[in-house]
């Protein structure tokens, strides 16, 4: 665990060296506010659960988080420090886990920036605290999935810019994954087939549940298991690379 902390701190130090972390945080905050105000009409409709803010978090994260995750593996590859890292006596799980943790901490910092908004909203309207807590939990879990996805892409691509673009594309594909139209037409033809399964894998509807205040264990399991699956995939890629393949 100590080793994880050492490696995680190394990543965080890297983020906060120079202005990149501050720039990413500022861009995230600006995009979140713009989305909440212009698309969510934050100051027009009542927001007892900050719905206007949380509704667009996946989209904002898909654009901003890859700027964090591209650094984790692709930049190591580009700078040649991967060779140094891979010859440290560190297991693959610690390498993958510490990098993911650093990325996730960055996304938590981003979300923490919205706390003043929650406080100021509570001063204006009677907020539904439990609903807001549920929405924050959903955002934290969604950030975990998108960070893990970014880690996978970053470990495959050795150019940070390419890793960024591919992570954005993969993120859009994940949050836009919705087979409902196709399934409903199939369901008409095959009424007995178990079409509930792909729908249960829908990222957006699961996230929507959290915004609606439905803090359900199966949604938590969905996000946690998706993150774990992506991290396992990341581990496999790192293992292959480390074995010189």
């Amino acid at each position, binding site marked *: 665990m100590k080793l994880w902390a*050492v490696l995680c701190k190394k990543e965080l130090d*890297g983020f906060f060296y120079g202005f990149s972390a501050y720039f990413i945080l500022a861009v995230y905050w600006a995009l979140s506010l713009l989305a909440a105000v212009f698309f969510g009409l934050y100051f027009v409709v009542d927001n007892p659960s900050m719905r206007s803010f949380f509704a667009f978090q996946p989209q904002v994260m898909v654009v901003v988080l890859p700027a964090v995750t591209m650094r984790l593996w692709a930049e190591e590859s580009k700078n040649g420090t991967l060779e140094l890292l*891979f010859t440290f006596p*560190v297991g693959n799980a610690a390498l993958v886990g510490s990098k993911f943790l650093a990325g996730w901490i960055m996304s938590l910092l981003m979300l923490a920036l919205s706390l003043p908004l929650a406080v100021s909203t509570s001063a204006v309207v009677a907020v539904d605290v439990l609903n807001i807590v549920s929405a924050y939990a959903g955002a934290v879990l969604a950030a975990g999935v998108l960070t893990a996805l970014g880690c996978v892409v970053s470990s495959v691509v050795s150019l940070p810019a390419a890793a960024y673009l591919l992570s954005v594309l993969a993120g859009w594909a994940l949050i836009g994954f919705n087979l409902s139209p196709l399934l409903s037409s199939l369901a008409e033809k095959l009424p007995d087939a178990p079409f509930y399964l792909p729908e249960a894998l829908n990222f957006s509807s699961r996230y929507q549940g959290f915004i609606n205040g439905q803090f359900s264990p199966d949604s938590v399991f969905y996000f946690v298991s998706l993150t774990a699956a992506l991290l396992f995939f990341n581990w496999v890629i790192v293992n292959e690379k480390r074995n010189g393949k």
Partner: protein
Amino acid sequence: MIEAQGLIKNFDRRRVLDGVNFSAQSGELITLLGPNGAGKTTLMRLICGYLAPDAGAVRIDGRSYETSRTEILRKLGYMPENTPLYKELTVFEHLCLVGRVFGLDKKEFSATLEEVCDGLELYPVLGQKIQTLSKGYTRRTGIAVAMIHRPQILILDEPTEGLDPNQKTAVRKYLRRCAEKALVLISTHLLEEAETLDSRVLLLADGKICTDTTVAGLRACSRDGTLADAFHRLTAEKTIAEENER
């Protein structure tokens, strides 16, 4: 300590290492000599587990990377080609990071830090960001990073490249001192390096070890008593002769 058996490595269709065999023990100082593209860096990468061989095996203290990677890497200190380092850190921070990764406690770290900084004359730049260092200091920081945990096996890829003559002398002196306690393997294409270090020489050409000898043994292969001629005979002329035979 190091045992390389029949190492073969191909990149695409090109054979970079072609059946390399050698073994080395603690207390040896070995110079891996060879022209550019001979396969020195690839061989070093295989030894420190960054690459896997297509055939053959590397064993460190009888262990292989497949089963004991972390245990082996704990014994190794490695400076890759071109000295990749985390440039956003200061020299001290980088050494701290590596010390922590290798699990050194404060006392051990302080002792080796002093030793390494003395030997490599790093005190003036300890608080400086690596990004701002000169090539010479960057190279010496790379060596320090490889040595901070007092490895039993030290592998340095062209450690004196880009250093001025005074720095080269200091680094070589330090490497000789290290070889009293550890196995030191360095790669170079500079003949003077092997000569000054008076080390065991592994001469690599076209992916094969063409000579495993001493500096005196290498000189004996020459027509005029110079290492340059021996190097030429064993690498360039041999290759031409082999091509003619084919």
